[in-house]
């Protein structure tokens, strides 16, 4: 393939740009900054485009470029952010978590995790992804930041701690809070009242 797919295929480029932008704005929570890093990543990708056997490989490669740009942006910003401070939203997520359990720390019957049916099916539905994004956006900023560094940017947990200057136990607490918040949100808004475990 000469000239590169990105430069020749405008609809593909537009679609890719949309995916990148979605990812960057979820991660950075700042639309203007997201536009900037996506622009930079695409410029770098267009300049260095190599031969790819398929769209999947190319997408992975462009995302890798974007990942580095986002990491740089986070590094610059993390100096001015105190991630370990607990917001009222974090506090309410923790209270919701506590409310899932009986005083003996076992599941309340009505809050036991439900069967999600065939969740794979959801991955093929556009609407599911809108719900997934909304649930991510619903997480408190700092909690989301830690979660996305771990799950989207695929930092090791100890790297997250170092970058954001938090202890590893705090990091585990925040990740647990994020996962449970996301899980509850998906269960309530997408998977609905399914069959409950007995």
């Amino acid at each position, binding site marked *: 393939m000469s000239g590169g797919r990105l430069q020749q295929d405008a609809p593909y480029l537009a679609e890719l740009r949309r995916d990148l932008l979605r990812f960057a704005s979820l991660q950075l929570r700042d639309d203007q900054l997201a536009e900037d890093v996506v622009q930079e990543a695409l410029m770098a990708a267009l300049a260095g485009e190599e031969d790819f056997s398929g769209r999947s490989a190319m*997408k992975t490669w462009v995302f890798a470029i974007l990942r580095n740009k986002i990491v740089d942006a986070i590094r610059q910003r993390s100096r001015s952010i105190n991630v370990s401070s607990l917001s009222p939203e974090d506090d309410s997520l923790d209270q919701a978590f506590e409310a899932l359990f009986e005083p003996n720390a076992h599941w309340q019957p009505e809050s036991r995790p*439900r*069967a999600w049916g065939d*969740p794979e099916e959801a991955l093929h539905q556009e609407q599911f992804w809108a719900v997934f994004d909304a649930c991510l956006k619903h997480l408190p900023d700092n909690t989301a930041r830690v979660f996305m560094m771990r799950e989207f940017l695929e930092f090791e947990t100890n790297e997250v701690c170092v970058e954001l200057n938090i202890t590893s136990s705090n990091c585990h607490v925040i*990740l647990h809070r994020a996962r449970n918040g996301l899980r509850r949100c998906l*269960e309530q808004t997408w998977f609905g009242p399914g069959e409950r475990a007995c």
Partner: protein
Amino acid sequence: MLTCKEITRLLSESQDRKLKMAEQMRLKMHLAVCEGCSRYKQQLNFIRRACRIVVGGGNGPGE
């Protein structure tokens, strides 16, 4: 036996660090008899898979 609340923390941490042998044993024993926590585990796995798809890796649907 660990409580369900403790198990949810352990399940989350198992995605971030290698659990100690004793922790793995306790987790296994609990999951064998607790459907709620087994589902919690499946749900966390699903969330991780969804995140991998967002970043363009991990055998997304239609790839």
